């Protein structure tokens, strides 16, 4: 019997000749060009060398002194010569990979890869069941982690909280305790001080199965902050040194407000933010060359009418993009901010602010983009706002992919086959491509009037609420083993005992 071989998988090589073709695989966007980046970077170096900074940590000051920095007589004010900064940037890794809880490498913080997630340390929460604004509790963090775990476009978890219903000095520890058990996605989190940070890292090590295991496949990134402009508290620097020593990824995040803690210009504000975050990078590299470090922050303006720190201004969007351009020029992974708003309730303004900040952040390609679901200028969190952000990120990601131009995408064969007056609905080409070329929303309305009316005339807000509640009811995050949960409980108990002393 003659066997006829039909290898359906064999795709023929495209033998048409096209030379020197360059395609855009995504949308192109840049705020600062090479020359502007260089000018800003030199300005940053000048501030570090000439203005200097206050470092309230003796150990760090000694590290800097030994590296050739100038320490003034107060033992706090340090000026960092340019060569020290350059050396630190050179030893800092250009890429960091965050894994999920199962050690699968997920977030490649390099080039323009943009990943989104919520933010930290909000004091209030909008109750998903009652709509009431109230102090945030541990159960909200549990719910946030669960929703993050389920949402397709949210890449990492943050707590959206500084919880109120526990020993107040251990809010950070309790939040990690809740997040680690309710999501496998990488966790970005914060700590009050070195002791709490140590407990938190031990919790991650328990889950990873050891110190080295966590270093090799970290599912944690620690977020800490200098006090802009140019002040570095003992706690902030102490945490920074701890993490550098551990070789675990951290981001050191100034929150600059143009006109208040930064100059009333966009470039000047970007410079102040960059000086603060780079000071952290220098200290980390002096402690442990090669320690993973992420630069960036919350770069915004103070509203001169209300004095709030803006979380949804157009300058917020463009200054973050400029900051990302600058750190990309320096080949350092970047931290950025988007998906947040100054609106106090879930309304149209949330949609406007989220859409504009997310779109700009995605265009600029910051690596870790946080604060999705933030409202009221960083005072209140909302699961509905988080779900809205997820939808907008999905939409924006589809735009980022641009327009594919190749033989299949040009579709000449199918266009010819269908011809005038025909239709493409029934074509294999349609079936093969409609899902990969077009994005489909979960909550965005696309029904016609009758269908919308018949399905309950729901507003967008109501649909977000339904989605959040549905996830909470139905989604089952992968569980940790009882043994690991017990070890996490013990670590929390030990921290409680330490605090009671």
């Amino acid at each position, binding site marked *: 019997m003659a066997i006829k071989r039909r290898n359906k998988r064999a795709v023929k090589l495209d033998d048409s000749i096209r030379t020197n073709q360059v395609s855009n695989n995504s949308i192109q966007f840049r705020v600062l060009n090479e020359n502007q980046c260089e000018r800003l970077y030199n300005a940053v170096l000048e501030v570090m060398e000439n203005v200097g900074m206050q470092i309230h940590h003796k150990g760090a000051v000694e590290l800097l002194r030994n590296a050739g920095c100038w320490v003034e007589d107060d033992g706090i004010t340090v000026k960092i010569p340019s060569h020290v900064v350059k050396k630190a940037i050179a030893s800092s890794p250009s890429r960091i990979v965050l894994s999920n809880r199962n050690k699968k490498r997920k977030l490649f913080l390099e080039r323009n890869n943009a990943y989104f997630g919520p933010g930290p340390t909000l004091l209030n929460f909008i109750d998903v069941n009652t709509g009431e604004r109230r102090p945030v509790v541990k159960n909200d963090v549990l719910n946030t982690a669960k929703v993050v775990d389920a949402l397709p476009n949210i890449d990492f978890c943050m707590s959206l909280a500084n919880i109120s219903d526990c020993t107040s000095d251990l809010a950070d520890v309790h939040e990690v305790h809740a997040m680690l058990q309710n999501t496998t996605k990488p966790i970005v989190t914060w700590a009050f001080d070195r002791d709490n940070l140590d407990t938190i890292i031990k919790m991650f090590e328990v889950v990873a199965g050891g110190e080295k295991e966590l270093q090799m496949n970290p599912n944690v990134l620690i977020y800490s902050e200098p006090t802009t402009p140019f002040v570095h508290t003992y706690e902030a620097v102490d945490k920074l040194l701890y993490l550098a020593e551990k070789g675990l990824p951290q981001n050191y995040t100034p929150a600059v407000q143009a006109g208040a803690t930064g100059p009333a210009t966009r470039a000047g504000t970007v410079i102040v933010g960059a000086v603060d975050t780079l000071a952290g990078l220098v200290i980390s590299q002096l402690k442990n060359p090669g320690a993973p470090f992420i630069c960036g922050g919350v770069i915004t303006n103070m509203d001169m009418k209300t004095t709030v720190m803006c979380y949804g201004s157009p300058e917020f969007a463009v200054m973050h993009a400029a900051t990302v351009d600058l750190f990309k020029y320096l080949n350092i992974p970047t931290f950025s901010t988007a998906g947040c708003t100054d609106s106090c309730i879930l309304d149209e303004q949330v949609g406007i602010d989220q859409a504009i900040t997310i779109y700009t952040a995605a265009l600029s390609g910051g690596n870790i983009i946080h604060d999705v679901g933030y409202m009221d200028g960083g005072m209140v969190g909302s699961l509905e706002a988080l779900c809205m952000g997820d939808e907008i990120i999905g939409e924006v990601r589809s735009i980022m992919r641009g327009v594919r131009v190749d033989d299949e995408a040009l579709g000449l064969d199918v266009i010819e086959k269908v011809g005038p007056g025909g*239709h493409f*609905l029934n074509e294999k080409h349609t079936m093969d491509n409609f899902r990969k070329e077009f994005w*489909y929303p979960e909550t965005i309305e696309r029904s*016609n009037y009758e269908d919308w009316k018949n399905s309950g005339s729901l507003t967008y807000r109501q649909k977000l609420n339904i989605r959040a509640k549905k996830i909470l009811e139905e989604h089952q995050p992968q569980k940790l083993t009882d043994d690991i949960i017990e070890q996490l409980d013990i670590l929390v108990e030990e921290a409680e005992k330490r605090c009671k002393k």
Partner: protein
Amino acid sequence: MSELYEQIAESVVNGMADEVENLVQKAINQGMKPKEIINNGLIVGMNEVGELFKNFEMFVPEVLISSQAMNKGMEIVKPLLKEGDVQKAGKAVFATARGDLHDIGKKLVIMMMESSGYEVIDLGVDVKPEEIIQAVKEHNPNIVGMSSMLTTTMPAMKETIELLKENDLYGNLKVMIGGAPVTEKYADEIDASYSNNASAAIELANRLISCMQAV
């Protein structure tokens, strides 16, 4: 036995034409009745597809691929069927109203109706009322379907219905209409039935047919 029917239904839902073909052949070889292969396998799968589409869990191209897969199975079974084994869901004559060349919505409805077992005769676009009357006389359908995309072509649908009445044809069939400017209210005014999307159109057609059978 029933497991094979389930597999057939599943292959229809997944739009796997080759798989449907193989499974249906296997069922025939095992001596299963053609009528049961259709009713317990192919149709069960297609009904599930309709349900999934209605709930936004399946997309139009996937529905059409499933219907192609079902038809692959039907082709094998059909020659083995006895008279009266399978009844068409109904017969329909469809047209885009006079003066109107927009027909993507109508095409979609026709494909969905065919997937649901209807025989549909499509008269095309810009069809005059007289031509529709002619086709009704010739094909004797249960349903006349008309679509219009422009407010200016809607009156042609009204004219057609009046002509059906004049020719004593209106009593033997049901008229369904659709299109962007068409409303439930307009349909009521001209003695037609209205649906606002493709899957609603299938439900409407099924309802109209069962009304007629009840009479």
